[in-house]
């Protein structure tokens, strides 16, 4: 079962967000979920690591590591 954490946001910001949401998201929680998921997305990071590993292997083959 998913666990949740309570956070606090300034009321004025929540009021602005509620007005802004306007059909883009159901509620503020959904917006924040979306933002955090997107910002922390590691799709690019997997490729970064793979490329680092590839070069490291090449250097090992050359005797540098």
């Amino acid at each position, binding site marked *: 079962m998913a666990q949740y954490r309570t956070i606090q946001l300034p009321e004025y910001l929540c009021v602005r967000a509620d007005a*802004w949401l306007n059909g*883009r998201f159901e509620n503020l929680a959904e917006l924040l979920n979306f*933002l955090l998921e*997107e*910002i922390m*997305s590691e*799709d*690019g*990071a997997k*490729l*970064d*690591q*793979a*490329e*680092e590993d*590839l*070069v*490291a292997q*090449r*250097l090992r083959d*050359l005797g*540098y590591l």
Partner: protein
Amino acid sequence: MKKRCLVLVTVDCLRADHVGFLGYRRPVTPTLDSLAAQSVVFEDAIVAGAPTYFSFPGIMASRHPLSLGRTVLGIAPQESTLATALHDSGYRTGAFVAGNPYLTARFGYDQGFDEFRDFMTAAAATELMPGAHVPLSKLNRWIDEVSHRNRVAGASYDELYFWYCQWRSSRQRVSLDGLRRYPAADVLVDHATDWMRGLGEEDFFLWIHLMDPHHPYYPPTDAMMAVGAPAVTAQRARFLNSFWNRGDIGPTRWQKYRDEILSLYDAGIYWVDKQIGRLIKILQSLGRWDETVFAVTADHGEEFLEHGVRYHSPVHLPEELIRVPLLIRAPGLGAAKIESVFSHIHLAPTLLDSVGAVVPPTFVGRSRWGEISAGQLSPETVVVECLDGCNNPFQVKDRIRPRLLAVRDREHMLTIRFGENRETFSSVKEGRENEASASAKKKYAQFVRRAGEHVKLATRNRRSQTAMRARIRELRYEGGSGIEMEIGPKTGG
């Protein structure tokens, strides 16, 4: 000491081997050739990335294009650039960009500019959005799908459809001006002139980005005549561009019209050259020329079947794409030719140093102004990178691709295609691959180490605050339908 003004002219798709001062025989750049005689000319200037969206972070922010992570495109919010540094030094700053959708406020290029004009029309802005291309009619889509179940039938359909479209369009009256997708160089110079005239005696930084050599190639008729090519009608130019753009045929057939296409391309360069001449005359008439550092370069080159491909797709990093013209003319600086490799990473700090401005500490490159002033540059190994095959990175999901990376010095280049775990080590001049000499092997190992250091650096910076701000900015445009979501604070110059 009175500050110097700075003018940076960048030309899209301008190859180094298509300017007279670097050896091109066709007389397409008389102004630049004359300017080169009083400038420092870089014979081996290399971009930090290609094409435009991978090149300009190097030019403007002295940063490798993927160093904030591959999902970040353009200039990050609050990132230091040539413009922000000069703006903070009290310069008036103006940019006039000829309708390149990747050099817009959306990608942060307006930062640091008091005046930023991107000349984007609604039509051009939506052309790169997903689904923006006008689909075939339902019937045509059906025929297209059915015919392509068989190779011969599919090829026949493509051929017939192409000629059908040509027949239909031949019945329309068109003009070269009407066909052109980007404002021509004279339009940009006119607007830049109006801006400069309004500055009085204020110190300024002017950036002009010209698109005339960019496909589709529709130069003014005058330019065609001037480069010694027969005047091409608008109809003929449209046909040539359409044929050259066909994705259903290959080099053997494209080759038939290569010379004519090259004439169109060269005429575009000629027009740029002529307008640069006009810009210089205007600076002279305003009494600003003798206090202005004037630099001209390109973001990348263009291919015309030298390797079987056209345009400037990041599917490989040949010389035709990564080696660009660069000249810097500065008051009191004598003419010189720099043979050593010069990376665009160093351009912004060098230009800032040339006008006596402070170089931001975030710049990866360093000023080479002292060496340049002495007429010599120490040898260097440079890095060029892009995302393999990334032709349209408007959306973040299209940027999740393997890297294509090159490490190059004056003699050799190592290219690593990470997605295929394939590499090529070759001589720059002769193009010989995989040299077996002991010195070549040693250099190969050095280049591999450099590649490793470079990739590690990108990995380290992708979670930086700067990278995060850029990723949040991307979310403002999430969905690709132009819905702008005001999530973060507005950034500005």
